[in-house]
């Protein structure tokens, strides 16, 4: 893409295994410390390399990249950190649960049960403020995006569309279906790194009551962190 970015495209599929391979490949490139590489950005099935054409030409960089071998699996799934996120599924914060229920034929309770029974893999962090793209959603819950996006989606909304589940990290427009809300701050511009969740990690959702969500504070967050250490 352009004269300063190389995009390596892997198979055209959404697969956890493939994405983990891309994460490991990015790590291997980082370790080589190739002069001229300014930035490495992983996405669902691509790895983008931003480089300085004053230090290295496209051809030479491609040659070096092809020489890098990816180390085989070092850690299995249980070796990756799992981040536990409190979610309230109260109607007030889940305006689209009814629609998902109508579309899938599952009751609201059944949908929540399906959502919380799984650990989700974080494929990438993207959009505008560290939005984690997590998958894969249970097949029974797959519904396309809303035909008309909402103008305002509240910060902290848990949302689904197609095979993906995400959390809106700042208030923004959005076309995903809102099924819950977290009081936990998963994105904080003043923190470094700003995102609590990073690509290649796992996330699990823990149901909490609406009262607990609305009275969430720093003390409760510290208790939560102690309960679910990373």
């Amino acid at each position: 893409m352009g004269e300063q970015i190389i995009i390596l495209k892997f198979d055209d599929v959404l697969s956890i295994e493939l994405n983990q391979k891309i994460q490991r490949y990015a790590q291997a490139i980082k370790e080589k410390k190739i002069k001229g590489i300014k930035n490495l950005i992983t996405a669902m099935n691509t790895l983008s390399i931003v480089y300085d054409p004053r230090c290295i030409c496209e051809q030479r960089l491609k040659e070096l990249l092809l020489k890098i071998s990816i180390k085989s699996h070092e850690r299995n799934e249980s070796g990756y950190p799992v981040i536990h996120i409190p979610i309230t599924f109260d109607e007030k914060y889940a305006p689209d649960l009814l629609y998902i229920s109508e579309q899938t034929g599952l009751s609201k309770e059944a949908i929540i049960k399906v959502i919380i029974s799984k650990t989700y893999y974080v494929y990438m962090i993207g959009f505008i403020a560290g939005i984690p793209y997590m998958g894969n959603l249970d097949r029974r819950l797959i519904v396309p995006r809303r035909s008309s996006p909402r103008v305002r989606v509240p910060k902290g909304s848990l949302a689904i569309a197609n095979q993906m589940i995400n959390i809106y990290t700042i208030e923004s427009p959005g076309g995903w279906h809102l099924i819950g809300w977290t009081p936990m701050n998963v994105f904080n511009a003043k923190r470094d790194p700003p995102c609590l969740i990073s690509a290649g990690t796992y996330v699990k959702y823990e149901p909490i009551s609406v009262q607990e969500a609305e009275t969430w504070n720093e003390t409760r967050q510290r208790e939560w962190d102690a309960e679910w250490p990373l």
Partner: protein
Amino acid sequence: MAFVTCLKAGLLTTVQDLGRQQYQYYGISVSGAMDRLSFRIANLLVGNPENFAAIEVAMMGPLLQFHQEGVIAITGADITPKINAINIPMWKAISIHDGDRLSFGRLENGCYAYIAFAGGVQVPEVMGSKSTFIRGHYGGQFGRALRKGDHIQIGDPLLHLNKVSGRSIPGKSIPSYQESKEIRFVWGPHDHYFTDEAKETFCSVSYKISNQSDRMGYRLSGKALSHKNNAQILSDYIAPGAIQVPGNGQPIVLMADCQMSGGYTKIGMVIGVDIPVFAQKKPGDRLRFIPVSIEAAQKEWISQEKWLSILAYNNHI
């Protein structure tokens, strides 16, 4: 530490630097100056490193009052800048005095102008940058555009003011925006998603910048580009300069505040040296796209950077 008061805000006046390059991995928009070349020149003229925070002005300028002696330089779009109601030259380091007022008049050409202050604008850094990102409410002056009544802090100049005052860049080196109606690009990564006819159309007809254009992206209108099959891909990395074409076939060129991922095909990418030229186009302007090779684009980039490093060298002596 000096300060400047904002007496009138203008259309969209924001604090910017060169943005948050190193946080793209975290899905953080790069932000920063729309026309990075003019921005960098403005800083270098006043004796700053090229990344110091400065003020970006969009089409309609603010009214600012200075409260101490200093040196400023104005580059980018020509919005008829004036000190105490008298026109001043652009692309030149100019001395200002306590009580002076900087105002703007008619937009003569371009879209974004830059005001750099010797010493730079002082605001807290957020994720390594002072750039304002309005949608995220962070960076710059309280995460928002400047407002009437704001006090903008200016740092201490790095070089003696006498040394930088009066500096200018040669006329032939001043970027000209109104003349260049041709924007060069490199094909890909998804040009093979388009029909041959669409690719030919893209390089032969002119496109108009639509009114729905802002710091996130410029929407273009012109002959629609057809995809062979579909316009959707798995969500992928995108960057300022990428030319995205959604299902309706009308291209959108992503700009400084763009999101970091997108699920639409990208027919090409505007080359580095032409992104500033493109950024200076405003709604209603027409332009054409010319394909070039990666090698040609790199050559242009390297020669631009060489020229800037010579300019920067003057600040080290």
